[in-house]
């Protein structure tokens, strides 16, 4: 498998997690590409306009990338806090529509501002890594950290509160859960992950423009979660990896790949209504694996 595709898969997994976090509280937010676009724009602007960060047109220090990530996290976090307070009053499909509107607004604004390069975008973003392998290593590390944090979240109080809100918001509130704050937390975390992912994507892609965060991207990233599952963080990770790789791996079958891709997205929810990865399925698999290992172990 070529490393460029692997890198795209890792970015897909991160975006999957970003869509998953609000969905864990039952909130269908499609704002992820908007925050992803903001993250990328922050990185593109800083690395091409501010010489002090060490961009010489080609290479770029990794410390500056980390700085960009921190800044992108701050910008997306604050924006998500402000927007979330308002839009999270909406439920279900209305929340989805308003977040689609947010993504579109951000796209049109970025298209019409001069400093974001308008329709052309920003070119010649310097490279912190000389090869795709470097990107893969760095992104894998980031994905591992994000997965670890998600795992901790799910095993502790806020994670359980989120699941309770997904199951029954009114009942959750009557258990003393501040539902508004919990949903806001998930929305902000989702924005942070998307923003930080955008930073890496901008460097990796070498150019950034307003089309990076659009409605298509909202639907694609949502498909990651619908396919993978909304019960545990592993679902969107698998969904992001598989669904990003699939169109490329299917290239040999020509135009048929679009049909196959569509079929996979269609059959996923039909065969696995809760997504491919669920906690129950995971524990069943681990039981089966353990049994097999025991069988294969030599009997004394």
């Amino acid at each position, binding site marked *: 498998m070529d490393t460029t595709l692997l890198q795209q898969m890792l970015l897909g997994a991160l975006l999957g997690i970003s869509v998953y976090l609000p969905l864990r509280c039952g909130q269908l937010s499609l704002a992820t590409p908007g925050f992803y676009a903001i993250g990328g724009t922050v990185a593109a602007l800083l690395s091409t306009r501010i010489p002090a960060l060490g961009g010489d047109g080609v290479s770029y220090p990794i410390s500056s990338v980390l700085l960009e990530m921190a800044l992108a996290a701050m910008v997306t976090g604050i924006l998500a806090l402000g927007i979330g307070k308002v839009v999270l009053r909406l439920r279900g499909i209305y929340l989805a529509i308003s977040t689609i509107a947010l993504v579109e607004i951000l796209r049109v604004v970025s298209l019409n501002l001069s400093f974001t390069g308008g329709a052309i975008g920003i070119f010649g973003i310097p490279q912190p890594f000389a090869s795709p392998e470097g990107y893969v290593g760095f992104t894998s590390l980031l994905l591992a950290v994000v997965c670890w*944090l998600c795992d*901790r979240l799910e095993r*502790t*109080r806020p994670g*359980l*509160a989120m*699941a*309770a809100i997904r*199951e*029954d918001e*009114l*009942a*959750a*509130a*009557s*258990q*003393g*859960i*501040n*539902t508004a704050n919990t949903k806001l937390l998930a929305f902000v975390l989702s924005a942070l992950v998307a923003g930080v992912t955008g930073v890496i994507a901008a460097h990796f892609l070498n150019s950034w423009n307003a089309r990076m965060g659009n409605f298509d991207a909202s639907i694609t990233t949502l498909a990651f979660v619908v396919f993978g599952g909304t019960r545990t963080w592993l679902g969107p990770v698998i969904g992001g990896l598989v669904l990003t790789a699939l169109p490329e791996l299917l290239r040999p079958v020509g135009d048929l790949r679009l049909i196959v891709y569509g079929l996979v997205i269609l059959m996923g929810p039909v065969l696995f209504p809760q997504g491919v990865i669920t906690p129950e399925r995971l524990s069943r698999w681990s039981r089966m694996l353990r049994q097999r290992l025991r069988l294969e172990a030599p009997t004394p």
Partner: protein
Amino acid sequence: MSTPLLAAHNLNRQFGGLMAVNDVSLRVHQGEILGLLGPNGAGKTTLFNLISGVTPVSTGRIEWRGVPITGMASHAVAGLGIARTFQNLRLFPTLSCLDNVMVGLHRHARQKRLAALFQTRPFHQKQAKLHQEALALLELFGIADAAHRPANSLSYGDRRRLEMARALANRPELLLLDEPAAGMNPHEKDQLCELIRQIQAQFQLTVLIIEHHVPLMMQLCDRLVVLNFGKTIAEGPPEQIAKDPAVIEAYLGGAG
């Protein structure tokens, strides 16, 4: 007389042209079991919703230990020590029974963020303690065997019991029970009556209970309040309520 634990003064709630709760005043004293009776549509559940902050009050005042709490959000009301169950069962259906009760412990499960992040020993110790408390509650209601099964796999009666266990996990002072015996057979109803007495004594609870099953209410409650068409029509000890002409008329219809 001392300040009541919970007092409602002239509560009103309108839904369009309908007065669901009409000028109802209510005092719940510490340690008592107060029953709320009334025909269907009398406004009993609406009154519960007003008290627990689920539905906003149109006019009127609610006080907790003499402090006004009118208009408080329901998570804040829960924080005071008022727990409730729901007439139509509102469990977290795909979460395990244990997790349902763990959610009930939400306010008592706060842990230091760093400790939770790095799963330190104190974190695990507290988590284990909470699990034990949740399991003990499941045990109390006889559903410990189902701890790891999803809530929606339980029978109807067990779901009702699980909801009570979850409410008790809030460690409340006042427990609002909305038709806890609905859908139970006579034998189960008797058991439930015993159980409510038992938990009331064990957890030093004050209980406000809605129930249609009159014999159970007569047996269980210290005092009864009867509502009809959103208004209080009678209030007093069970023996007196049983003879009250207004109550008999509400249930059986007037003589002419």
